[in-house]
């Protein structure tokens, strides 16, 4: 029994080792051939132009170099209305925000007064940056229970009404692609990447078809890396505050963006594979991590039971999938697949 067991065990070990060796050989042969290299000479792409017959469609043409340094051209369309909506819907003009929030706050206070049946006794004024003041007056002979309601509302205005502003502010920021947590205002990458996927669907399909039968991670990566690196201003010329972020559709139309803008654009394209992707926020930088099986030479991280390959999207230098020098603990944003 022992000899039989040993023979069986030995045979299984040999077969297992052979299978492992074959897998390793196949993996080496299929390994990505792209390499880190100098910044490629980038041929200027034509500017976006309207599609004849449909003025709402913009044709985008990109000239870039693929992972094998071969020149490629990508042509896709995006709806001008989508692009303009995405860009106008992100960020805020402070004056407009204050006006809108004050209007919403006034409405909320008036509705509360109506609900308590005391609106006719109060005059409420909202002013400045969400401040408010009020006066109230009731004629002699007013019923005692009404007087009590008036006093209750006065007390509510004094103590609790200011708390009503916080949810209004949070909702305002959320509606404008931002996230307010405590005093920290940040870009809502997940929503913006998700919302941009449909407008960028044609660009995704065009890019995917350029990759042929191969998993096009390297191609997607070099495409985004080759977009011009440009730091968007914190406040754009129209006075809109954007925290230095450019929405994915604008990155594609303007063919430029900084680390987090490019990372979000990459995520909104890549999630259409469909696959999960992480946007990792490093102070002063951003990169992505793409769900997949990392190779032995690829830097990767693990979230739950899923592995993600780290990818530098910022450019303009070339970095292969899994090639990064970043190390440490950082915040991530999970972008679910489309």
């Amino acid at each position, binding site marked *: 029994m022992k000899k039989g*067991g040993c023979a069986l065990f030995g045979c299984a070990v040999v077969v297992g080792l052979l299978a492992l060796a074959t897998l390793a050989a196949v993996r080496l042969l299929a390994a990505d051939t792209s390499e880190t290299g100098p910044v490629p000479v980038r041929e200027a792409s034509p500017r976006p132009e309207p599609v004849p017959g449909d003025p709402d469609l913009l044709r985008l043409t990109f000239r870039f170099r693929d992972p094998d340094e071969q020149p490629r051209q990508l042509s896709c369309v995006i709806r001008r209305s989508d692009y303009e909506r995405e860009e106008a819907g992100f960020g805020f003009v402070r004056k407009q925000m204050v006006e809108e929030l004050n209007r919403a706050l006034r409405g909320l206070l008036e509705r509360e007064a109506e609900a308590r049946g005391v609106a006719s006794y109060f005059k409420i004024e909202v002013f400045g940056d969400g401040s408010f003041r009020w006066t109230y007056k009731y004629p002699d002979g007013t019923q005692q229970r009404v007087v009590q309601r008036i006093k209750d509302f006065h007390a509510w205005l004094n103590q609790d009404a200011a708390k009503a502003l916080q949810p209004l502010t949070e909702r305002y920021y959320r509606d404008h692609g931002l996230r307010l947590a405590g005093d920290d205002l940040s870009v809502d990458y997940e929503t913006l990447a998700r919302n941009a996927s449909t407008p960028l669907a044609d660009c995704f399909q065009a890019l995917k078809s350029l990759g042929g039968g191969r998993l096009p991670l390297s191609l997607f990566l070099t495409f985004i890396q080759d977009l011009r690196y440009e730091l968007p201003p914190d406040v754009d010329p129209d006075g809109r505050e954007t925290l230095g972020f450019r929405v994915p559709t604008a990155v594609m139309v303007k063919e430029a963006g900084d680390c987090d803008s490019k990372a979000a654009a990459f995520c909104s394209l890549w999630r259409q594979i469909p696959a999960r992707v992480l946007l*990792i926020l490093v102070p002063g930088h951003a990169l992505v991590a793409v769900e997949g099986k990392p190779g032995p030479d690829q830097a990767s991280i693990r979230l739950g039971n899923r592995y993600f390959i780290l990818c530098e999207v910022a450019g303009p230098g070339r970095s292969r999938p899994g090639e990064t020098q970043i190390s440490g603990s950082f915040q*991530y944003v999970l972008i679910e697949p489309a």
Partner: protein
Amino acid sequence: MPQIELASLAAGALAYAVAIGLAVLLVFGTFRLHAALLASRRDEESMLLAGHRSLAIALGASLLSQALLLRHAVFPTMAVVRDLFLGHPSRAEVARVVGQCALFWVVVGVASVGSVLLATWLFTRMTGRLPEQEEILKDNVAVAIFYAFVLLAITAVLNEGIEDLARSLIPYGPTGVIQLP
């Protein structure tokens, strides 16, 4: 100026207390389990008191092996418990975290004890001409030392798998903090 965060300190203290309690509980449990398996209903305590060296070596190796694997339940436990200290959790959230922690310990505990038992059982079946358990009970120290090293060798290989399993149990949200290599 660097400051000590009280919530973080409290989480660390809780981790320490949980680790002490569970370590004692689990090590004692596995001791009883292995003693029963090795001694086959004999009184393992009296055998140890009588100076049974082989049983001591074998039991000690079993405990060490499983403790090395069980420690992987501490990391996921603290990963979820720490979240309680960062906000103002409701009772339902606290109950959910307690349930998750219990699940981590049950899964890692069963996997650790079960896999070591299974691996050693398979190994003893493969070495048919060497009846390890009988020889240990006869106080054959050479066999006991060999058995102990077998257990530790199996544990060294299993360690990676149990660590992987334990980390896969940690729930993750749409945002969080992650360690880059």
